[in-house]
């Protein structure tokens, strides 16, 4: 049985990285006593697959994980048991049973939406101008880990916008998130002249192919 779980990751769990989150899911399943499937081979590993690594420090609102079980189980009782066993900050919001033959979750991710909260006062006019300049340019050359690339094609659709919420400005963006072309919100912020330490970034949605 293959399950797809939608969950949020918040609170102190934002400082838990991708590999550690994988281990948290393993332990949560063991504590919940659900019959996890294991891979074959000399070092059998539990079959748990997270959609896309959430960078350290980011919050996640609708993250996805696939989990394989050895036997059919009732979805309602599974989500209840898993939630009871989950650590603080991990909240399960949806569960569905999916067709086994679907390709790996990681390969299905197409784009991701983010919301960036600025912890300091910003000049909204200046940021807006900077944003429109960025979008109007022919390319946004950037370098990451010694490799040159163009950020512009990774900025998907033109839904970059600046909103105001409780007097705090936030920036929403939808970026490409396919395995070969991943846009990073901190790169967009760097282009705007902000350091990620002075923001709080939430990945609000993962969009799958055909999704």
């Amino acid at each position, binding site marked *: 049985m293959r399950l797809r779980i939608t969950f949020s990751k918040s609170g102190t769990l934002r*400082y*838990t990285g991708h590999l*550690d989150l994988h281990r*948290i899911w393993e*332990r949560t399943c063991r504590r919940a*006593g659900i019959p996890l499937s294991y891979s074959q081979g000399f070092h059998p590993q539990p079959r748990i697959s997270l959609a896309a690594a959430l960078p350290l*420090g980011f919050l996640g609102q609708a993250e996805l994980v696939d989990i394989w079980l050895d036997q059919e189980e009732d979805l309602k009782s599974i989500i209840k048991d898993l939630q009871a066993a989950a*650590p603080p900050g991990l909240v399960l919001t949806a569960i569905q049973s999916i067709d086994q033959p679907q390709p790996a979750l990681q390969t299905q991710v197409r784009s991701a939406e983010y919301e960036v909260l600025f*912890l300091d006062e910003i000049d909204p006019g200046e940021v807006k101008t900077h944003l429109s300049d960025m979008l109007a340019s022919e390319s946004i050359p950037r370098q990451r880990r010694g490799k040159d690339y163009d950020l512009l094609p990774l900025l998907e659709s033109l839904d970059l916008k600046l909103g105001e919420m409780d007097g705090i400005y936030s920036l929403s963006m939808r970026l490409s998130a396919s395995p070969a072309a991943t846009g990073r919100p901190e790169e967009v912020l760097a282009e705007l002249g902000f350091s990620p330490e002075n923001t709080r970034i939430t990945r609000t949605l993962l969009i799958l192919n055909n999704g």
Partner: protein
Amino acid sequence: MLNPQQIESRLERVLLTVQKPGRYVGGELNITVKDWQQVKTHVAFIFPDIYDLGISNVGLKILYDQVNQREDALAERAYSPWLDMEAVMRANQIPLYSLESKHSLADFDILGFSLPYETLYTNALNILDLAGVPQFSKDRDENHPLVIAGGHACYNPEPMHAFIDAFAIGEGEEVIHDIIEVHQNWKISGGSRNDLLTSLARIPGVYVPSFYAHHYLEDGTISHVEKLVADAKLPIVKRIVGKLPPPPTQFIVPNIEVVHDRVSVEIMRGCTRGCRFCHAGMISRPIRERSVAEIVDAAESAIRSTGFQDFSLMSLSSSDYTHILELVTAIGERFGKGRLTISLPSLRIDTVSVELMERLGNRRGTGFTLAPEAATERMRRIINKFIPDEQILETAREAYSHGWTNIKVYFMIGHPSETEEDVEAIAKLCNSILTEGRKLIGGRAKVNVSVGTFVPKPHTPFQWVSCDTPEQIEAKQDILRHKLRDRNIKLTWTAIEDTLLEAWLSRGDRRLSDVIYTAWKNGAKFDAWKDQHRYSVWQEAFSEHNIDSVFYTHRQRRTDEVFPWDHISPGVRKNFLFQDFRKSLEGEIRVDCREQCFACGILPQFADLRRENSGEVWKCPEVKSPKRILSGSQA
């Protein structure tokens, strides 16, 4: 002073600039977070090394549970920030805070340090500094937290006497409640700090160093220790529990990778073997065992509450647990078929141990451990860990032929009266083990040799002997490096500087407080970390205070010498230790004291507790005589 909200908002700005920020945020599964305002006493338990190491400390977990079970108190945790985080905290004026509620440590009523080993001392000073709490006890007043410490290193508290207000000597499960109650009454009374310390000094097992004066002879040794107030006790006898309370099962599950992610269940406390070098074996007497059912149930509930896959049965000598076969059978049946890795450390060197490991259904990848500590029968008589050579080889053969490919062997150099031949014998024995392995499994056979350097520890029969000099250690290590050259033998040894530091700090007197402070001020911290050595800083600290470090390390003690730790009593009498030391000089062994009581002093000291806990829980003989006869006998 910053409040928790201010600390949290400053943290948010800096956490992404440090390595592993998950160390500094708390929020783990199975922690206890109470309403700060609803309790009278706030205790922070501190393991003075990084989170990755401290989180799995079982002693602090026991105390954390003890305090949090009270309605009128809360316990939270703090650890040493790693260097990068420390720099960031200092730059941003973030005081060291507790992980649960993010209160500054200075807001707590009691700061309780765990000091299991001496190389944590500078970290403890650093933590007080990061918390904005004066490091010297004499500089703290009614507005500062009470600073207490416990753990094995505190059986010689004097090197840290200037910094710690009160030491809890011995087992902490009960005394922590006494300390909290004294603190609560003191708070209501509105008394002075001295009033608080005076009440603390009345609690059995609590040592308040400022109530004692140490007088010295001309040669620098101690003439006597004088108590300065009537209520102070002399000697200060350790606390023990008559029966081990239920073990913790709700282990805190870290959200990041740490050194040991595992469930540990203590199967017994104490050891009856009487190895003469062993500090733990002397100070943690008497033996008290848990029942098989209690251990198995605790393991089951801890595994369920954590989801951990490693499970360790803790004790100083697992093979000596009375029902060991029954226990491993029960554990193997209950958990063997799952995906757990079960470890059973400190097994005796005999073929039964191979069988025990097999019954646990253990993965064989981890290696089979033998700890003969010395390589000649002569030396094993001296240290009272007598095992014939042939038994060591037979056990190794058994392990190799039952699927283990790697045998780990633990030795020490620097035992009293050790000769070149004793050291060469280490190499010879390791080579013989490998030869046996090759006969059985060919080229896959491996031997990992770990050679520590012996430091004569307080309260052991070897407390009178001298440490090897750096030159002697170097020569002995050279012999081993030269003679253990097979590519399937891996040799590791202890750095000479580490040994010297351990020796100074564990055998030091009150004068060491100044040395420790100066060393910390000049940059010493994380002394337990190989890559953080500040050996020259320590040497300079000794010379700055005109103290000869050799006095502590390379000096045979007079038989009538008063040691800096003599006023702290682990229940074992000094003249028992001396008698045992004399026996060692004659190569005379003492059998396991379960077979025959050697009157170490524990039984008269804790006769009442033994009487209350009759039967097989304790391994000391029953006390039948009336109370009044025994109550007078003391160390």
